[in-house]
Every structure is written in C-alpha cells, then in structure tokens.
C-alpha cells in the first residue's frame, strides 16, 4: 500500500506511541481489506476517538434541559426524542401522529429551533435545551399563541394542536409570519385533518400583529 494511502488511518491506529513498523504495516494491511475486517479487531483503534461507545442493549447517559428543568437520563440509542418525552418523562403534550416527520404533531423546540421530535434520536441532543408545549405557558398564564388558538377556535379534535402551537411560535420568531401566504407556507409541516387551517392562520396573524413577545 502506498504511504499516502495510509496517512489518515495511520493516525487513528497508532494506539501505542511505540508501535513498530511491523505493527504499522500489519494494521495498514488490515485496513486495505476493510470489507473483511471483523468488528472485534477495531476496538483498540476506536479508543482514540472522542466518542461514547454504547454496546448493543447498553444505555447511554444523556443530559437534557427540558422546559427549564435539568435531567440526567439514561437512554437506549434507538429511542427518539419523542418517545423519551412521552414514555420516560411523561410529557405527553407532545403528540405522536405519523411518527415519520410528515404531520408535525411532535414539533418541539431544541435550542430554540423547531423540529420533529419523532425523527431525531434523544442521544443526539446531549447538553441541549428542549421546550415542549408544557413549557410554553408562564405558570397559570397561557402563552399568547395558546390564548389566540382558543380565541380563534384553531382546532377541533386538538390532536395536532401542541405541534401547531410550537410551530406557530417558531414561525413568528423566525420572521416568517408576514402574510397569510407566508404563514401557510411556513406552517405546511403541520397537518390538521380537521381542517382548522383558516383559524390557525388567523390566530398566528393576530399574535404577530399584536406585537407581543413570543
């Protein structure tokens, strides 16, 4: 193998500073046969990574601040943020609609940005701040967007409403609520099968025009 071909893996593989030329060649050879490399052979190399290695079935430690409360958790890597919120923390305000990022019912804010909690793994958010619908009100005082949804009847069955409201707040914060057309475009990731769209648009327009801090 050409030396330049080894330059990248070489650095990862030099686990022992005193590794010999023979070791180097041996490891380079195994790299050249990547398709045949058994997983067990690579553990040493991985030790050099700044990583958290979770064996299958092993839970990963995770720190999250949710609605202002700090949590030290332990989760399986395959748990989505949505399932963590609902199943482990009993924050069931965030809804599971399609579970495939198509309906927006699971919308939450992560570090202030709206996203679908169903299409993201909880472990990807170590150290981040999550806001759910439960974190929007200030004590007994509803958030202006919650008030506006009630006033304008922005729902029928209510299942999509937490996601709609989280998305609506973000829509204004992003500066994308300047016209009915713009609101409809930037709210298109939230589906309402009862068809409350006109009332939702009215609620967002009122909050936007009211100039309240959202």
């Amino acid at each position, binding site marked *: 193998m050409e030396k*330049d*071909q080894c*330059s*990248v*893996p070489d*650095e*990862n*593989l030099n686990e022992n500073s005193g590794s010999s030329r023979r070791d180097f060649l041996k490891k380079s050879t195994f*790299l050249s046969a*990547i*398709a045949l*490399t058994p*997983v067990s*052979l*690579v553990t040493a*190399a*991985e030790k*050099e*990574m*700044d*990583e*958290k*290695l*979770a*064996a*299958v*079935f092993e839970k*990963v430690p995770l720190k999250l601040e949710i609605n202002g409360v700090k949590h030290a958790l332990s989760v*399986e*890597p*395959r748990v*989505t943020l949505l399932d963590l919120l609902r199943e482990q923390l009993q924050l069931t305000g965030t809804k599971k609609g399609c*579970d*495939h*990022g198509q309906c*927006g019912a699971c*919308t939450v804010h992560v570090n202030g*940005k*709206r*996203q*679908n909690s169903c*299409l*993201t*793994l909880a*472990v*990807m958010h170590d150290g981040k701040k999550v806001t759910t619908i439960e974190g929007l009100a200030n004590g007994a005082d509803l958030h202006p967007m919650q008030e506006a949804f009630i006033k304008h009847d922005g729902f029928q069955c209510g299942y999509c409403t937490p996601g709609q409201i989280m*998305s609506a707040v*973000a*829509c204004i914060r*992003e500066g*994308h609520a300047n016209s009915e057309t713009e609101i*409809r*475009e*930037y709210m*298109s*990731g*939230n589906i309402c099968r009862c068809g409350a769209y006109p009332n939702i648009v009215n609620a967002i327009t009122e909050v936007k025009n009211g100039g309240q801090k959202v």
Partner: protein
Amino acid sequence: MNQFQYVRATTAKTAIGALVKDPSATFLAGGTNLIDLMKNGVTAPQKLIDINPIPLTEIRKQSNSIYIGALATNTDVADHKLVLQNQPLLSLALNAGASAQLRNVATIGGNMMQRTRCFYFNNPDLPCNKRQPGSGCGALEGYNRMHAIFGASPQCVAVNPSDMSVALAALDATVLISGPKGDRRILFTDFHRLPGDHPEKDNNLMKGELITGIEIPDNAFGKTVHYLKVRDRSSYAFALVSVAAALNIKNNTIKEARLAMGGVAHKPWRLTEAEKALVGKPATEATFKQAAEIAMQGAKGLKYNSFKLKMAPNTIIEALKTASGIA
C-alpha cells in the same frame, strides 16, 4: 427500529476511520431520512457514527466561489446572506423542499445522501432492486406515477427526491470529499448515478468516504433565476417535476443558461443540450419552447407517469419565463 451502537466523532478523520473499520456502520447527520428508513426497516445499520460534533457548518466566501460545510443545515444555507446574494437559486430550491422543522435539522451533505421516496423501496414487503439487489423492480410494472422519465433502467425507475441537488447540479457545484485515501473533489453532476445494473448505488462515494462540503462557483445570473416545483399540493410534497433555471441575459440576448430538472430521473437531470439551444437567442417564449422540446428528447413515460412528458416541458417554459421576467 433495530438495536445499534452509537458513537460520536469529533473530527472527519475519526469518523472516516470508524466507518472504514466497520462496514455495517453508517454516518448520522440530521437523521431525518436515515431514522425514517430505520423505522421502516428499509435499512438496519449495526452502528451509527454521529458526525454532528465535527465542525463542518461554516458558510464562507472564497476567491471565486462560496464554500458550504456539509453539516450546515438546509435552513442555515437558505437564509444565509451570502447565499441569498450570490446563489439565490439555491435558497429557492432549499425552501421548496420539506418543512421548516425538517430544514432546521437536515444537512447539506445529508440532503445529497437522501434515498428515493419510491413506495417500493420504502416498503420492505415489496420487491426493490435498490433495497435488495436481485429482488426485482416493483415500480416498473406497478404504480409508477412518481417515477422516472429519463435515464431509467429495467432494474430501477426511481427518482432522486432532492430539490437542493437540482439547483446544485444547475449551478456547477463541486462536492468536497474526504476518505481513507485522502481528499478529492468531484463535480456535483458526477456525484449521483443513474441506476443501470446497480440501482443499490445512489452515488459515487467510495467505501469510508465523507462529504465535507460543497463549493459553488460565482456566476453572472444574479436574480435571473427560478426554481419551479410542481407537486400534488402547494407545499410540503415531493416534486412531480421541478426545474432550476438560471439565465444571463444582456440586451435581450441569452449569454449563458443553466437548466436542471428534478423528479424525472435517478439523479438531478442537467439539460445541457437545452442550455446550448438557449445561448445566443432572445429571451422569448418561442426560444424557451424550443429549448423545452430539446430537453425532452429521449424521455420515456411509464404506465402511470406519462403525464410528466407534458408537464416537464411546460415546467421548463414556465421556469424560464419567470426567471427572465417575461411571465
């Protein structure tokens, strides 16, 4: 979803090293497509290498181009001042895709890597040569309304779902790649593949390679650009047909043209011959009609998607009219 190991990589080198060492692993960026595929059982990697800690989110001006790091989100790129000023076509295409929630998370590299939305690919109970080579193509004789009219093979008639990639193909972007053998650059139009006999390969990335960024060369198109996406509803749906158009018009004569289509092929479909036909001509509807006719040469409809044979040229004409301001 299957069980898997989860590791975080903080540098491109460690990420590449980890992928080279474990062929059953895959990179995890925004995850909006990968996690969906894993939920559907379309893919079941044994290890996810989370590359989000790698500092690849920068967007900056270079001497003759704009550089965009592979981990910049779709939103960050679409809203970035440099992109809005210098490459507005890219912003238009990005904002035509997905929803605000998804664009906040989905990355530029991940957008390039997203898999087809073909129903047969996404349902493990159905045959699909892309998901399971040799199992057959369910769409070829099946419900193929969303499928390809250009460059398909008897093995696969799926289309690439990305809007962003259509704009980047039109804008002559370059893909920056790091791998176990070092760095390399390839033209964006050479990144994705046609299905041929290997539809399981969406692109020309080699084992262990990581997309680190893209470069888009400066151009003279200014605001004379348009991205027109035709879909089943007015927002948040994949394209039936989309067109990225960019024109450089001086004294009502087209000096330069760039055209690419989405929703019609296994890769972003650059329309080089139609571009040539536009150059030197006046920016009129007649010119655009002629270019659209040339663009459609070689198109072939399937049982349920032949409407695209009419929709595609009309979309080209409309996109060019809007870009040039004669609409």
